[in-house]
């Protein structure tokens, strides 16, 4: 698919999508554009599923593949963890280890572990470990700040 980005000096921002036939890729792009930045598109088996950011408990990268975990489902995402890090630029999404992004809104409780690590119990009962490297930034995030 040809892809052009043009910077304009004035006027309203606009996205024009030209297509000859509706392909899954085009459909996905339309979904994304329609839902703004509040939704992601994931794959459940061979079915494409649109999920709201607020449904996500955490996102994990396993063997180069990215998965979003919700209360009921595990969805395969097309984007890499780094791309998602930029896409989910909300204050509630926190990179808690090399391979994981955590939704703080879905954390039920926290436990302080030895060596300054933090154990997060998610609302579905799963435990996520916030490594020592990320723990101090996590504390800052909880207090309302965004670490650099």
């Amino acid at each position, binding site marked *: 698919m040809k892809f052009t980005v043009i910077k304009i000096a004035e006027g309203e921002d606009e996205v024009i999508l030209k297509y000859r036939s509706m392909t899954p890729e085009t459909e996905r792009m339309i979904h994304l554009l329609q839902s703004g930045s509040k939704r992601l598109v994931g794959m459940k088996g061979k079915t494409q599923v649109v999920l709201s950011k607020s449904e996500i408990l955490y996102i994990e990268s396993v063997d180069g593949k990215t998965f979003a975990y919700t209360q009921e489902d595990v969805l395969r995402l097309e984007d890499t963890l780094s791309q998602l890090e930029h896409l989910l630029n909300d204050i509630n*999404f926190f*990179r808690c280890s090399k391979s994981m992004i955590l939704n*703080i809104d879905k954390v039920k409780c*926290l436990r302080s572990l*030895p*060596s300054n690590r933090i154990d997060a119990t998610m609302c579905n009962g799963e435990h996520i470990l916030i490594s*020592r490297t990320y723990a101090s*930034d996590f504390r800052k995030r909880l207090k309302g700040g965004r670490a650099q």
Partner: protein
Amino acid sequence: MNKKKVSLPERYLTKEIGIEFKACLYFFCILFFYCVYRVIGGSLHASIIHMTEMILLTYGMGYVQVYLLSDFDEAECWRMREIFYMLLCSLLYTGISLLGRWFDRNPGVTIGFALYMMLAYVCAFLVYKAKRDIDAKLLNEDLKAFQERRIEDEERDRDS
């Protein structure tokens, strides 16, 4: 979101500070026992050689604890492995105290010192645990406040 990497020197420094802290903690415990022993024995003098041995030993034991014995006094809970490490370290301290004649090789005092070191380890474990419990309480308060702020922000966004 940030991309943060802790450098090797930073990682080393973090461990080193932990070891220094442990050395201070256990040195203070041993020195207290030593001073009580000296005072009870009628002496108001402490040997600089003994104190140097204590400092070097606690520093060395800090390295052993952190790098070889999984930092057992800071463990989340004590199982057989941690208890074994605690006994091992207490016995090592006791053995060196015998070699260095810290307590004039008095058997009763030496046994007392071994028990005292075990107690010191148990206390250190409880102190670390209490520290983590307080920390968890503060973390959960911050988490609750964060989530409440988020709900308020979302409601405000919806209204506007």
